[in-house]
């Protein structure tokens, strides 16, 4: 016969259930808090973000180059531009949510400014292609090329 105060199988089940809910709650709440990674993790994230941005800028540059030479169809270029802007937004959004460590303030500023420049460049390109402003294409290609070089340089510096 079990003593009155002894936990029975029902109370064990209840305790397990409460613990599970509590764990899920902690996980959910911690997921909502902006992450504050250490310097090494932050630099890894910055590198990944810069690489993603470089990929999109280089794609748009190469695609626009083909359109400028009348070697690409406008609908496919517009489709790629839409995807590149979306990808860049996603990468930038994820990076912006991170709280930079004090030691990485300069990296944060450089990355942030380059990501912002990349977003502007892609938006300008989309507008120019949509409006068929062909005379703008060479300057845009040149800007995208310079931006890609700057992103590549930052990528190499973060990696070293």
């Amino acid at each position: 016969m079990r003593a009155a105060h002894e936990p029975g199988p029902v109370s064990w089940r209840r305790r397990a259930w409460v613990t599970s809910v509590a764990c899920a709650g902690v996980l959910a709440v911690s997921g909502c808090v902006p992450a504050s990674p250490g310097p090494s993790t932050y630099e890894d994230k910055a590198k990944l973000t810069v690489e993603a941005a470089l990929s999109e800028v280089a794609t748009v540059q190469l695609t626009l180059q083909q359109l400028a030479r009348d070697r690409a169809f406008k609908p496919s270029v517009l489709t790629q531009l839409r995807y590149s802007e979306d990808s860049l937004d996603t990468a930038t959004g994820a990076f912006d949510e991170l709280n930079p460590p004090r030691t990485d303030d300069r990296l944060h500023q450089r990355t942030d400014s380059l990501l912002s420049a990349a977003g502007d460049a892609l938006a300008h390109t989309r507008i120019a292609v949509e409006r068929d402003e062909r005379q703008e294409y060479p300057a845009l290609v040149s800007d995208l090329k310079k931006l890609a070089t700057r992103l590549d340089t930052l990528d190499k510096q973060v990696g070293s």
Partner: protein
Amino acid sequence: MKKVFALALGILTAIGGFVDIGDLVTNALVGSRFGMSLAWVTVLGVGGICVFAEMSGRVVALSGRATFDIVRERLGPRVGLVNLIGSMAVTLLTYVAEIGGIALALELGTSVWEFFWIPFIAALVWFVLWRAKFDLIENVFGILGLALIVFAVALWQLGPDWASLWQQASTAAKPTNEAWPSYWYYAVGLFGAAMTPYEVFFFSSGGVEDGWTAESLPTMRGNVLIGFPLGGLLSLSIAATATVVLLPASIQVDTLAQVALPVTVALGKLGFAFALLGFFAATFGAACETGLSVGYSICQYFGWQWGKFVRPRQAARFHLVILLSTVLAAAVLLTTVDPILVTEFSVVFSAIALPLTYLPILIVANDRQYMGERTNGRFANALGTGYLVIVLVASIAAIPLMIWTKMGTT
């Protein structure tokens, strides 16, 4: 003359039908990140699919029954059910990816949002599977898929440093900025893409649809041993064009437009149009194959009438399964999930499910009750067993590598 024509047509459709959305995306992605250093995986995967497709083709030609029709009978309902659930989950995921791939190809040609296309594509795929004859589905999309040869032409036009490409492929040395876990993760994905389970379901059941007999063996072997390796060359061309154009520009593939970009650079609008036609044919053909495979496998397990060789009314459950899986695939895509991401998942999960598909084939191909004198010889068994070990290793490694590398992003 008729036999030669049948062989030639079979080889051409095997080449054109070899590449699907998984091959397109994975090969371009791997080429843009690892160059040709993973080419050996494609060669290995093509070898594997040849070995097992030949075995399952032989089973069909000699027994007149699809391989997975025999699996339940030979291995019992429980093992058959495990096989069915594992393989079907992956085939359905692949079906979702293929329908998404068609939508991406149409979006690329029209600039109309991909999700707008999905209900129309799903309806069209279902209609084709319901109304069109089997050989029409097989041949039309297989032949149109040959448009992907444009990748080989583009590679030649780009004038790459062939010695460097060969050196990357033969030494399997990854770029220094990439990590080994990611290298192996993509190796598993590429292997899964080359040996996708639905390919043998379709090949084996298609043999019954085509009425293969022992006399069909030479044609079947020609299709497999010539057509599939040549299809594998298309995969390698896609990876090579990405290596030449995208890798030096630091472009990582995450859209179908990026897969076609090297062709545009090399051949301009005409090349792009061919690539687009190839994408459409490859994904539409593969969507038909995966849709039929879902119907084949479920009906074969439950012993229901299946196939396109009977009127839809006589195989009502078969067509209902196809209809329901098409609705499910469209519903998944309409959640606005990225079809490229679904493709990446589908090739990795294919790798996980490979042993469930290939072990039964090896067992049935050694069973005298079905095969008579033509069971596997020593050479076929040695190859089959060797591949089974590789398949098992890939299957076990897939999930840990996926978690470790965060799906290849680290």
